[in-house]
């Protein structure tokens, strides 16, 4: 079947979705996808980032589709014509979805381990605005401990439900899911149960944001300070391919992940033993450096180069702000001085 996306035509098999066809074409027409994951059945359709305009339904029924369609779940038809990046409507819709995804997001990238490889960062870089129109209080969730390996940050979650599908499709006893509803829907085990399964670590890899991160890597390093290498080992866990990317700092393995392709999908799932328990380079056969997109921040990895001394102009301001915070919060360890207390009471900080 022939489909045309942003003016570029391609022949595809019946049953191919618009998103898959666009990925075959490649380049700028590929819609962003936050919830679709080609290796997970039933994923997609939820985040609405990949909306496209179908300007011609098919050869048989050339009428345009009135609404924008989620390209990840809409099948191609013979003669279909699609506008992705070329359509103002589509661009506007993606901007809207980006804004919606960000209004309740904590925007804590500076302390988020996902920063640098976060799909939401990429999306907002492409479609977001620097200014927010949201002045209400952000929605937050109580933290939940889901076990020794994985850190759950529900406030960052965009509810793509990929991690639920991983648990459903790779493991036999899912213990976490989506609880509650509406904007309070959250990923949880409900009973604060540790997620304990040989393949649970893949939840980290499929998470498009920093909602699920690796506890063994937590706060260790920015991802772009690590050098990724393809590596493998003889893994005895049934179902694990043993092929990974190890992220090195000097001679130290800081974390192990699956091998992710250009759409940030893992090529194959790996077991928890590979991911969490083998941080000794001797355990691995290092194949060579892992290639990344040209403009990925991971390629900006020039920590080996000598840096000039940088003066940060905002530093003074930051220090002043800290001092103000100390007064406002009045930490018990550093109590306010007497005259400061007086001032504080009068509201003059």
């Amino acid at each position, binding site marked *: 079947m022939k489909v045309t996306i942003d003016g570029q035509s391609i022949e595809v098999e019946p049953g191919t979705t618009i998103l898959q066809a666009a990925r075959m074409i490649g380049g700028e027409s590929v819609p962003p996808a936050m919830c679709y994951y080609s290796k997970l059945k039933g994923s997609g359709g939820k*985040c609405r980032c990949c*909306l496209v305009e179908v300007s011609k339904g098919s050869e048989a029924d050339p009428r345009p589709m009135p609404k924008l369609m*989620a390209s990840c779940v809409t*099948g191609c038809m013979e003669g279909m014509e699609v506008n992705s990046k070329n359509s103002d409507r589509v661009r506007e819709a993606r901007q809207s979805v980006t804004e919606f995804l960000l209004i309740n997001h904590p925007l804590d990238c500076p302390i988020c381990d996902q920063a640098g490889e976060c799909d939401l960062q990429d999306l907002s870089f492409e479609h977001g605005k620097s200014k927010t129109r*949201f002045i*209400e209080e952000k929605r937050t969730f109580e933290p939940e401990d889901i076990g020794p390996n994985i850190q759950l940050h529900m406030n960052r979650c965009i509810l793509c439900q990929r991690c639920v599908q991983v648990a459903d499709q790779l493991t036999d006893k899912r213990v976490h899911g989506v609880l509650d509803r509406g904007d309070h*829907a959250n990923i949880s085990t409900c009973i604060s149960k540790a997620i304990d399964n040989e393949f649970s670590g893949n939840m980290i890899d499929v998470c498009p944001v920093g909602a699920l991160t690796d506890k063994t890597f937590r706060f260790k390093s920015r991802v772009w300070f690590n050098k990724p290498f393809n590596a493998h080992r003889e893994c005895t866990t049934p179902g694990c391919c043993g092929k990974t990317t190890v992220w090195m700092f000097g001679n130290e393995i800081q974390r192990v992940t699956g091998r992710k392709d250009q759409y940030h999908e893992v090529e194959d799932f790996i077991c928890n033993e590979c991911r969490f328990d083998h941080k000794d380079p001797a355990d691995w056969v290092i194949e060579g450096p892992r290639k990344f997109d040209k403009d990925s921040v991971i390629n900006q990895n020039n920590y080996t180069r000598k840096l000039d001394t940088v003066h940060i102009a905002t530093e003074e301001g930051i220090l002043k702000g800290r001092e103000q915070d100390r007064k406002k919060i009045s930490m018990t360890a550093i109590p306010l001085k007497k005259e400061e207390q007086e001032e504080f009471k009068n509201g003059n900080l």
Partner: protein
Amino acid sequence: MSKKILLDKINVPGIKTYEVYRREGGYASVEKAIKSMTPDEVVEEVKKSGLRGRGGAGFPAGMKWSFIDKKSGKPRHLVCNADESEPGTFKDRYLMEFIPHLLIEGMITSSFALGANRSYIYIRGEYMWVFKILERAIAEAKAAGWLGKNILGSGYDLELHVHCGAGAYICGEETALIESLEGKRGNPRIKPPFPAVSGLWANPTVVNNVETIAAVPWIVNNSGDDYAKIGIGRSTGTKLISASGNIKNPGVYEIELGLSVDEFMNSDEYLGGMSSNRPLKALVPGGSSVPILPADLIFKTANGEDRLMTYESLSDGGFATGSMLGSGGFIVYDDTACIVRNTWNFSRFYHHESCGQCTPCREGTGWLEKVLHRIENGHGREEDIDLLWSIQSKIEGNTICPLGDAASWPVAAAIRHFRDEFEYHVRFPERIKNRDHFVNEPFEKVKHLASKQTV
């Protein structure tokens, strides 16, 4: 007196019971269909009747039936949507509570037409006492041989059960309803595939509203053509309207489509005019999701024609000057009502009922509510009105199911027709701090204050 089809026998004492219902001619359509018609003939009659889905969208029922996949050889199901939760709508409950056997008769005849051997009535969990009424009615019908194996010796089998929800407006959306019937969270499915191909347990399924199914016996007993003679144009037959708000006689009414809004509102046979002598301010004609109409667009359309109770006339003028018949939830407001407060109220409802599956609805409905809450409570900013407009336009059309649209339309319409009232709220926060701020000081009286600054 206009023609009554659904509520014709409603005042017969004991019509709730099987004996009286049967004595009054009930279950005749089952006999007629099973003994003298083929399933396709029944579908054909319903098609001819022009009966349109009474749940809100108004899709032709016969056409929906004809889409059901009969070739796959999979079992087929009919599911009745009794998850009535649209604010302003309470007609299905009335029908099921007071004449339950009519729905059951309709279910049997319709299931026969679709070749469904296992059908369900999905009722909202809050209607628990109606759930019990239906369970008993089904047991009575089964005892009398209208359900089970080999009905009337025809070889046709049908199992009919009631299934109860548990408090989720979204389960009124047909695919969410199916998910809920499968014992899952009520998250709408992505379409296609449509339920007619892959619905309940991946089998071909038709989902119809209570009122739609209840109209089928009459159509079969008489004919599709007879039904099509009632009403005007493509709005055929009768419709149940649930009327509420500031009117003299709230309640459920059966009207012939084509009745004028004026007559419906003001005649003593129906609503009997306003409940007090306050003037009419606004009308929501079809449940909370449809656009609100200001007083000058209620009885006349924008081009001066009489506004009629039909699908077409109520939507005349599009969203700019029209609305929709929707589910028939007719809410009338007098001038003590605050449109901003009411819009916030609806927004809170949609925020509460969003399933949380897709981004624009999950995040957008909450945002709308928060902004509206601020405006209503005197913390609005001038730019919030445009912000609301922008948010609703970003939700609309971008969601998996129509709940996103339903949350957007009331906000858009309120701003379109009552923008000055929003401005008043923003500019005079001290005047609106009590929740009944328009009771003693209707907006008409203070309107000049808002308009003064809009030079």
